[in-house]
């Protein structure tokens, strides 16, 4: 691990567990913040940094950039919260109870919810209410869409200026038919049948069941790993969910879901990283497996090199301008990404590559 990586994890752990930063001096802030941006937690680290005193403190120029991260994020959360409040209120008037997915719900699990970055509102309404909910929500002031009822198999998108809202009829798409059927049953249990009601500072919202929050957060991180690159933010989300719900989870149910979706091995490998690098207490990591350390080391390299949405990938950063060269570049990118992933989880990466390869071929033909 490089000195900047060591400093990054020291600061990240301080932020996640709301503890003072210890033993950090001469921080390489430029490298640390570059890493934080790539992993989607620059706001979290900025908050720690601006409160620091003494030798490790950032320069005035860096502090000013951090303040703008913090204020920008607050502004964006304010607008998203207003959109969420309006949407939830409108749907309730029509007897539809949406379940809030991802950003807002996950933020509540952090010591300071204002610091967990997210850029959209995700509402799950299910299959039965999907079309009605889309029709209602497109009438909200400031909303804009392209007239399509369904943008993807999973959700419908409405833009409120630069802030999107995704209305989900399913929470995730699973490529293979058997896995999709299993996932649908898990979704029924965790989203349709057992949502939890929580108070979000004056706004009561529905969240998935605690088990589904943990499972889905991990599943989302895993999906990122297989498709677009996973960052430390997604892995931190799983750690925060496990910590917040420690002692309240039906572990047998969680074990069953992970086993049925063939995710127990990835779960244990990610878990090793959460314990070793993010500081999640081992007792709070269900099904912890110390033997995962070798694969975990390879996953660590993948996560650190790739970042959230492959932001850290050199391959992604250099796109040729020529249309055909651009397409070829993307095509090769799919293959290179596969090689990186295959070093960690060969069979899972191969399955995903088969799917992505087919999609890339279709794209090239367009």
């Amino acid at each position, binding site marked *: 691990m490089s000195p900047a990586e060591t400093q990054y994890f020291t600061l990240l752990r301080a932020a996640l567990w709301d503890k003072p930063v210890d033993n950090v001096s001469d921080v390489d802030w430029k490298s640390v913040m570059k890493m934080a941006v790539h992993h989607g937690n620059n706001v979290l680290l900025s908050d720690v940094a601006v*409160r620091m005193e003494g030798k490790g403190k950032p320069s005035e120029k860096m502090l000013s950039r951090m303040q703008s991260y913090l204020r920008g994020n607050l502004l964006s959360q304010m607008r998203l919260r207003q959109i969420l409040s*309006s949407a939830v209120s409108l749907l309730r008037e029509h007897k539809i109870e949406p379940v809030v997915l991802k950003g807002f719900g996950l933020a509540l699990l952090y010591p300071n919810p204002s610091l967990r970055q997210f850029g959209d509102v995700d509402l799950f309404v299910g299959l039965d209410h999907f079309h009605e909910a889309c029709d209602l929500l497109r009438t909200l002031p400031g909303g804009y869409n392209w007239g399509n009822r369904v943008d993807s198999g999973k959700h419908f998108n409405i833009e409120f200026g630069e802030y999107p809202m995704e209305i989900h009829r399913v929470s995730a798409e699973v490529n293979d038919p058997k896995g999709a059927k299993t996932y649908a049953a898990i979704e029924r249990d965790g989203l349709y049948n057992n949502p939890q009601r929580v108070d979000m*500072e004056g706004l009561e919202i529905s969240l998935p069941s605690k088990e589904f929050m943990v499972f889905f957060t991990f599943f989302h991180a895993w999906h990122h790993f297989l498709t677009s690159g996973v960052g430390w933010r997604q892995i931190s989300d799983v750690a925060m969910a496990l910590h917040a719900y420690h002692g309240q989870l039906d572990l047998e149910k969680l074990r069953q879901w992970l086993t049925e979706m063939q995710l127990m091995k990835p779960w244990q490998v990610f878990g090793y990283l959460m314990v070793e690098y993010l500081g999640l207490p081992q007792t709070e990591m269900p099904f912890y497996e110390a033997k995962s350390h070798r694969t975990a080391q390879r996953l660590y390299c993948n996560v650190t090199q790739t970042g959230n949405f492959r932001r850290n990938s050199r391959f992604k950063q250099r796109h040729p301008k020529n249309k055909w060269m651009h397409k070829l570049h993307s095509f090769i990118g799919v293959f290179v990404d596969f090689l990186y992933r295959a070093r960690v989880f060969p069979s899972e990466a191969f399955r995903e590559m088969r799917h992505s390869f087919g999609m890339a071929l279709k794209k090239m033909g367009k």
Partner: protein
Amino acid sequence: MRTKKGYVLRTIGKEYILVAEGLEASGNSVMISLNETAAMLWKAVDGKKFDADTLVSLLMDEYGITKEMAEKDVAPLLETWKKSGAITD
């Protein structure tokens, strides 16, 4: 008077910021930076009925200052909160 629903006090770094987040504040893009004292007062009266005297008493109790000094501090603060729509009569 009363704090308006939908206004939430956030702490980022060393700053306290009052943010208009709720449905009642919809379309109102307000972020007010508060100092530590103002943040303490907001927390104390948030969601409750209060008047200028309530704030004055809180300041006198917390910092042991005279009534005149407290009134001097409270007047501009209330003006800011009113102007931004964070409190209602």
